[in-house]
């Protein structure tokens, strides 16, 4: 493999690594956001329940 070839493969691979981790970070964000929404819903129903019983 000559140097130019190697450079382009290196760049390609580093972009692939970056893309993979960006994708994983987005998924993590979505998972944690779902969890956060679930917590938020629990807080809302707690307040509503409290109001209803008043």
């Amino acid at each position, binding site marked *: 493999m000559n140097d130019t070839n190697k450079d382009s493969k290196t760049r390609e691979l580093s972009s692939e690594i970056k893309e*993979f981790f960006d994708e994983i970070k987005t998924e*993590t964000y979505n998972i944690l956001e779902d969890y*956060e929404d679930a917590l938020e819903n629990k807080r809302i129903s707690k307040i509503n329940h409290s109001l209803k019983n008043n």
Partner: protein
Amino acid sequence: MEGINKPEKTKESLEITPSNQEQNENNEITPDEIELQTWLAKQTLEFRKEMLAGINNLEFGNLSDKEVLEAQQETNVVNKLQELTDRIKIKSWEFQDKIALVFEKNFKPKLHQHKTEIESRVAKDHLKQDLNKENLYLRSEALYSKIEENGLKSLSNEDVDFLIQQGGASYMMNSLDKVPENLRQNLLLRLVDEGYEKELFEKYGMNLPKEVLVNLSPETIFKENNFFALNEDIQKYIITPISLKVMFINPLIEILPKMNAEMQNYAFEKIATGPNDYRLVMTQNKLEHLSPENKNLLEELRQRHYYLADGYENKKNEEVDKKYKGEKNKSSRKKSNKSDPYKVSNSVYKATNSILDVAFGKKSSGLKKLVAYKLDPVNKVSRLRDFFK
């Protein structure tokens, strides 16, 4: 590759010259390869850092441990994060192999090496598990022989815990009458954990030690007049911890009017200063015997909870906001944690452990405790979204 800090050149890497470069490409790690490996490691570390920050920034408000765990189960968050981590592990191997290919390293030996490493690790794990099982079996057998020879008095609390862990709960349940006093309390607590509450209660009723009574379910404690059959000291002993547990609050509030004035005030104060104080607001008319101070406290609670509910839906309520600003952050649980600033409930700690095991794949008890502290419902943290913006 923007943002990558090049590794410092070592003596060996400085020695790379055009004349030996060809040999180097095939057999040794080149600076470019190091750069790619560093890039991969940096991305992995950044991911872990962001995931941890994301977890840190979750807001739990005044949710109970049970509600927090329910939300975890509903969203399957722990398993999903575990799946992501597994994907990263597999993908990292793929990247390692691709990096090796770019630098014309021999792909097959590397794959073979991975395979051998994995197989050897799996074999070691199996061997370890087999040995562990064998050891556990031998230890149980030895303990049962010890009991046959010298009776239960020859056991320690640790032995009892071990035998119950190894499926000996039923055996211990049948031997309860022979258990010496020094093992009794620990054994009863373990049996409650193992689901023998009903049997224990049928056998001993409210004569169980108070340390065990506080661990029974609300159905048992408040069944018929069980609670009032206890003497007042034990009633007070039980009220203190259970006033902090969500599932006990409604039944406890239900029986408040049946209590005498002193006990009612005691229980009221415990609930009012705990994290589930809002439930008292619902029953204000039932509380006849409250002292004037506690009646005032109830009115304060009522107004504060109306404010919280109203503030939630109408955030521009400036007048009440002025009056109660800051008060909603007060928590008696925070005060009670003064002696150990990082003290958290077991369920929050366990949940954090599972998440951090996923995030780090290794044990780090100090860090876990710190993060568990931050995850505890009594601590307010900034919103997750802000971190990712």
